[in-house]
């Protein structure tokens, strides 16, 4: 560790890490993915959906298993399809108000993992799943970066259209409804976006870390934000900063890129926590 740090200081010029094609791609991807997650995270946190993407991640197992079973070749399709189904069902059950949001999410997460494991115990394929456990942002290709970029643009547009409604909804559902917000529609659009983004990027972030990337920036920003604007801006900035910093450090410290980014986010969270408005 210390050695590595020394290396970091002495041996390498700061731009060295960008001399590799895969690092440049990873940097571009980070510059797109982190703000995307920073944006979506604010509302995920505000709506008590801190484990929604974790559930989505775990349900990826079932998506893959079902895909294998149905003979769907393209994993992304089975992932996104299953993610969307889970997202809509969670929202629906949540709104019958029989249990708190986290319990409902937990139930679906559990059920879908168990289903996935049972299917896989017939068909093998667990190896595929464990490849998704820890993703690899270094493996992203230019075409995929472009796709993500368009996703980012689309999300930003939808965000601008939906934001106020989502905000009211996050304060109080019934109040939002009385103000003429189509609460179910808005909520469904939101979870659909999250599901799509999560499932699209799970390959690069990994099941174990995807939730962190969504929640940590927004949670950190919450400690110091005193308005919705600040929340959004801080969240995006923190995500971006930690993304780039983490990626760079991972190169010099010789650690896994995704985990290092998340670790940077965690550190920033605790700093923000200490300096929170008390």
């Amino acid at each position, binding site marked *: 560790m210390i050695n590595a740090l020394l290396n970091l200081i002495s041996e390498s010029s700061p731009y060295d890490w960008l001399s590799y094609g895969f690092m440049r791609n990873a940097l571009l991807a980070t510059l797109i993915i982190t703000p995307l997650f920073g944006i979506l995270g604010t509302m995920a946190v505000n709506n*008590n959906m801190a484990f929604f993407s974790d559930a989505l991640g775990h349900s990826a197992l079932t998506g893959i298993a079902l895909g294998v079973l149905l003979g769907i070749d393209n994993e992304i399709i089975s992932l996104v399809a299953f993610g969307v189904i889970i997202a809509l069902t969670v929202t629906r059950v949540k709104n019958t108000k029989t249990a708190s949001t986290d319990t409902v999410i937990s139930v679906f997460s559990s059920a879908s993992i168990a289903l996935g494991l049972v299917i896989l115990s017939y068909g093998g394929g667990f190896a595929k799943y464990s490849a998704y456990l820890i993703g690899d942002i270094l493996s992203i290709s230019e075409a995929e970066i472009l796709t993500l970029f368009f996703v980012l643009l689309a999300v930003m547009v939808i965000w601008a259209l939906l934001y*106020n409604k989502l*905000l009211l909804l996050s304060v109080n559902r019934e*109040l939002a*409804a009385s103000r*003429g917000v189509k609460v179910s529609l808005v909520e469904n659009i939101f979870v659909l976006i999250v599901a799509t983004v999560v499932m699209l990027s799970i390959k690069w972030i990994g099941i174990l870390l995807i939730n962190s990337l969504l929640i940590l920036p927004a949670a950190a920003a*919450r400690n110091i934000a*005193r308005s*919705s*604007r600040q929340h959004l801006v801080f969240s995006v900035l923190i995500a971006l900063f930690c993304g780039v910093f983490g990626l760079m450090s991972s190169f010099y410290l010789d650690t896994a890129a995704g985990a290092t980014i998340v670790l940077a986010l965690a550190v920033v969270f605790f700093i923000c926590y200490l300096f929170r408005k008390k």
Partner: protein
Amino acid sequence: MKNNGNGCGLCEIKVNNVSVKRGGKTLLNSISFELHCGELTALIGVNGAGKTTLLKAILGEIKHDGSITFCSHDGRSLDKITIGYVPQFLDFDRFAPVSVRDFLLSGRTRLPVYMFHPKKHKFSVEESLRLVSCEKLINRTLGELSGGEIQRIMLAGALFPMPELLILDEPVSGVDYSGSESFYEVISDLKNNYHTAIAMVSHDLGIVKRYADKVLLLNKKVLCMGNANEVFASKEFQESFFSGLGEEND
């Protein structure tokens, strides 16, 4: 208060034979009445009478039998009207970084709250806050407000955009004396100058007497309806409030 050109399109809300069941129990039993624009209808009744339930049915949040229709002056039925709602309790996430400004803005514009807003919007928010004497709270987050302050902010939110129907569930519970006085002034103004229809739940019978044009005494069904004097003089009123808790039929 400025006239926001919102006029009065709504004439009356017809509640027709509304019943609500939950968990096998009848909470409301074929309720029928009308709310007129330009009138304050007070809903009174013992605790658990079903007042909140009735309001939520009108808001469309609770499944119910029977029909609730909004009619315009020329008799057409309206699909969507502007409703202002002050809930009895506001369940919300106290840690959310949502400021009073954010909350009020999000209810009145489509321009995302996180963008910079034209002067117009700012004035409108400030004006609303002035109505409830809470100008100083504009930068507070909702979680940092006292009980009465929240209630005031809810009132401020409910009054813009100018509602055609105002639904108030114990709106001034927790609000201090001067706050509730000025609130009732605003309400009267709204009613008289903008012909808003108002449904209000209150346990303060003095207030009901002073401000209500029509009083509805509820206990699962409509026990009595009329102006305040009529209702207060009725047998049912005496039974409800002066002889223990109304009957429960579990």
